[in-house]
């Protein structure tokens, strides 16, 4: 096949514009981690099954390992690094720490972003709604109970 050229891609990540020159076959997860050094976004299964690579695209959780970086152009990308405010952690992050919802930490960025998107849309979810929202994020350590508790607590904090 003909030689593939790098392309200019404009990405807006955590409220900052980035002009990148990248090969078009690169995924958003790869570009976030390798080009922008935002390694809070994890990569694991590479097929969209585990949820560790979750980022927010215009506020909605998506899998960055099965999304071309070029296809994220024109959208607002939020990674875990973009969540904390200058004054401190985001309430969901606080709640995860408070409620021991982190063990190895690998699923945590994806879980927290998914939870944030849920609470933005539905500030006071039921346990059922929380479980449904994180049903695409796999955690092999906690058994999910602490995570669900943390999200519930974050929603109570906002009350």
């Amino acid at each position, binding site marked *: 096949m003909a030689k593939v050229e790098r392309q200019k891609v404009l990405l807006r990540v955590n409220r900052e514009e980035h002009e990148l020159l990248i090969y078009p*076959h690169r995924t958003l997860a790869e570009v976030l981690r390798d080009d922008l050094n935002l390694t809070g976004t994890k990569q694991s299964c590479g097929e969209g099954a585990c949820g560790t690579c979750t980022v927010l695209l215009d506020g*909605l959780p998506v899998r960055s390992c099965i999304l071309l970086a070029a296809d994220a152009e024109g959208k607002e990308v939020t990674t875990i690094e973009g969540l904390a405010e200058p004054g401190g952690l985001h309430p969901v992050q606080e709640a995860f720490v408070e409620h021991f919802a982190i063990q190895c930490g690998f699923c945590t960025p994806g879980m927290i972003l998914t939870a944030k998107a849920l609470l933005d849309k539905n500030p006071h979810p039921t346990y059922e709604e929380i479980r449904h929202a994180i049903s695409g994020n796999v955690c092999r350590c906690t058994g999910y109970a602490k995570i669900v508790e943390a999200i519930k607590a974050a929603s109570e904090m906002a009350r």
Partner: protein
Amino acid sequence: MGLPPFHYLAPQTLKQALEILSQHKRKVRIVAGGTDILDRLRKRLINPTYVMSLRRLSDLTGIKKRKNELVISARTTVREIAEHPSIAEHFKSVAQAAASVAAPPIQNVATIGGNLLQNSRCLFYNQSELVRNAAPMCINQGGEVCLAVKGSTRCFSVYQGDLAPSLIAFNAMAVLQKAGGKRSVPVSELFSGNGRSPLSIENDELLTEIILPIPRGLCGSSYQKLRLRTSLDYPLASSSVFLSLSRKGVIEQARVVIGAAGPAPVLVEKASASLTGKEPDQVEIEQAAELAFQAAQSANNLALPGAYRKKMVRVFARRAIEAALSDLEKAGA
């Protein structure tokens, strides 16, 4: 492992997109949501020269009501379909199917067009190159043997789309466009029934719309899906049923569709006919489910044994019929 290199094209208009397809034909692959195709690229199941993204074609999104039908543009996300009030009102089993696709973050980007036109799957084929290289090449990879059904010279891969069975049960039409042409076909005719090339769509055609005729009178529908976990998984067997009631209180139209039970979703004519003109009792429901069971293929090529999945087609067809009947009762009450 990263994706293989390709040229990336992102046309601004539908016309440009159709021209790209007619120029490059089978050398180009289409990315809408990308949730299925990126995995296939990563596993080197496909290796296109060009990848065409539909992201700039904003005309291809949205759900519109037009006379007695609902028109869903091909790039509409599965999430929008799961949550749209008109779909919930008129096409319950379509909303149920959309809500059962993979997991919420995938529904946020996966599209109806991509979900419909996904390729069939097999435990031996949908694997990384490393795993595939550990076994002889199967028919689908250009080899001579089927690894799932020993001795077979045909491919038994399974179509595992969630939306197709419900769309077929509601008599949906698909609009396919190409440079200088346009045709509409029933969604059921998008599938060839051949495991190696399961989709009946030309390589210069683009699916642009799905048209759902709004059924009249009292009707009920249900989509039932077997999977290992209640999230993430593809269906391992499924059934979607549509029923409508005549003024006399008998079933006027019945459509029983089964999915994940062969290379194409199947409208089981015998099962549908067995319910028509009746007020089906439990025995007649069981009979219809038995006919659905008989139409299912059984091969050991997914996460559960073929014989078990085939038996579960009977169970899920029965549940879908019962749920659609209970809709009718509620609507009539």
